[in-house]
C-alpha cells in the first residue's frame, strides 16, 4: 500500500486567514471573553489554540488562557493502541468551573477524540459551556458531535487521510489530502 498526495486543501496563508476568522467568530459568539478559555487537544490542536489566542489579542486586546489536553487515557480504543501510546502531560492552568471552554483540534472525523476530550474536561470540574473549533471537518461521524466553529468542510472517502502540517510540529505549513492506494 502506498500513500499518495491527492490535493492541497490549504496553503500557509489560507490556514492563517482561517484561524483569524475563527478567532473573530469565537469572540463574537461568546458574547464577552471574561470566562472564555481555549483547550488545545494534543498534538496539533495545541499550536492551533495558541495561534487563535494570539489572533484574539489582536482583535480587542483580550488575553484568553490556553490549556492543553492529552486524551490518551480517555480513548475508547486504548486496548488496541496501548502498546504504542505515549502519554503527554495535560496542562490546564486555570479552573474550568463556570468557564466557557472552546476545544481546538485540527481535524474532526469520527468524533471519538472529542468524546474522550470531554470526558477529560469534566474530570476537572463543571464548565458552563463547551464548544468545539476545528480547522477541517471531514465528515464520517460515529458520534453525535458537531463543531461550532469550522475552518472548512471537506467531503472525503473513508480511505482518504487529511494531514494538517504545522510549522511548530512538522516544519511545514499546509493541509493536504492523501489517499491509500493498493
Amino acid at each position, binding site marked *: 500500500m502506498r500513500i499518495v498526495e491527492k490535493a492541497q486543501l490549504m496553503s500557509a496563508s489560507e490556514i492563517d486567514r482561517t484561524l483569524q476568522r475563527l478567532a473573530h467568530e469565537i469572540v463574537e459568539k461568546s458574547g464577552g471573553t471574561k470566562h472564555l478559555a481555549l483547550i488545545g487537544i494534543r498534538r496539533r490542536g495545541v499550536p492551533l489554540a495558541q495561534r487563535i489566542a494570539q489572533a484574539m489579542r489582536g482583535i480587542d486586546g483580550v488575553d484568553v488562557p490556553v490549556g492543553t489536553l492529552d486524551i490518551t487515557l*480517555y480513548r475508547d480504543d*486504548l486496548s488496541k493502541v*496501548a*502498546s504504542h*501510546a505515549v*502519554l503527554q*502531560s*495535560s*496542562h490546564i492552568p486555570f479552573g474550568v468551573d463556570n468557564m466557557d471552554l472552546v476545544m481546538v483540534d485540527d481535524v474532526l472525523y469520527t468524533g471519538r477524540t472529542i468524546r474522550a476530550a470531554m470526558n477529560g474536561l469534566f474530570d476537572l470540574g463543571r464548565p458552563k459551556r463547551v464548544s468545539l473549533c476545528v480547522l477541517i471537518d471531514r465528515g464520517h461521524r460515529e458520534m453525535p458531535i458537531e463543531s461550532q466553529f469550522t475552518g472548512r468542510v471537506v467531503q472525503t472517502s473513508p480511505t482518504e487521510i487529511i494531514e494538517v502540517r504545522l510549522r511548530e510540529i512538522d516544519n511545514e505549513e499546509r493541509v493536504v489530502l492523501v489517499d491509500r492506494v493498493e
Partner: protein
Amino acid sequence: MTYRPRDLLALEPLTADELTFLLDQSKPFQEIQRHPLKKLATLRGKTIALAFFESSTRTRISFGTAASRLGADIMNLQAEASSLKKGESLLDTVHTLDAMKPDCLVMRHGASGAPEFVARHLDIPVINAGDGTHEHPSQGLLDALTIRDRKGTIENLNVTILGDIKHSRVARSNIHLLGKFGCRFTLCGPAMWVPSELEKIGPPGARIRRVFRIEEALEDADVALVLRVQSERLHEPALSLEDYILLYQLSAERLRHAKADAIVLHPGPLNRGIEITPEVADSPQSCVLEQVTNGVAVRMALLFLLAAGPSEDGAHPAVEAQASKKRRSTDVKDPSHASR
C-alpha cells in the same frame, strides 16, 4: 522512546533511558492526583491481583488506589488470611489466583527473587512490590520522581543513605536507579548494617562509599534517604535503641552538615524520635508526604504500561521481551540477595 516492559521485577536491569521513560510517564498521573475527579476508565474491565505474602499497609493501599483510579477492579490476597497458612505452596497459590483471570499481578514476598520466580510461570505481567532484601522498584521510582521534582534533576547528586542498608530493598532500588544517572552514594549506619560488599552493588562505575560518622556522611549531601529502623534487628546488647538514636538519628543539627537545600526522604512508616526527629520530619526539607502522593502516580503509570492490554496483533505488548527477561533472571549481581 517508548518502553513496554513485560514485568517490573527490578530496576537493576533497566537502562537510564528506560527509567527516564517510566518517570516521564508518571507525570500525567501526578496531575490526575490534583483533579477534583480522580477516576479514569482507562483500565475498566481489567482486574489487578494484589498478592501480599508479607504484611504491608501503605504499598498495598497505594497500588489499590492506583488501580481503582484507573478504573480497574482489585483482587486482594493477604498473607494472614491466605491458604499459605494451610500449607499451600507459593506456586499453587499464584496459579489459583491466575485461574481467576487477573490481568496483572502485584506481588510482595519475604523471599528475594520470589516475584521473578512467579513471573516465569505466569503469562500475565508481574510487578514486584518488594521482595526480601532484593528490590522495591516502585519505591525507587517514586523516590526518583520526588527528587527530580524538588531538585530539577536526578543527575550527579550526592545521596546519603542512613540506617539499615544491609536489609533494605529500598536502598538497593534507589542505588540501581540513581546510580545510572551519576549520583554518588554515602552509606552510613552501624557497621553490622553497612557491610563492605554494599560498595560493590549498583551499576558499573557507581560511586559508593561507607562513612560511619553521620555528620561526615551528610557533608555536601543533596539528598538524605532515611531508612526505617526495625528494632527487632537491633540485636541488643550489640547496639541498643538509645545508642542508635545517639549515633545515627537525623536531627536538624546534623542535617545542617548537608547542603542548605538538601531534601529528606523516608519510605515510611516513620519512627518519629528514632531514625528521624519530628522537627526534621515536619520541616520544609522533608518530602515524606510528596513521596506518598507520587507513589500513587508512579503505580498508576506502571499499571497503565503493563496492564492496558494487547497490541493490535493481539499479542501481549511485551511478549517479545520475554526471552530477554528469562536471560536476565539468572544474572544476579547483588551478593546479599539471598541472605534472608
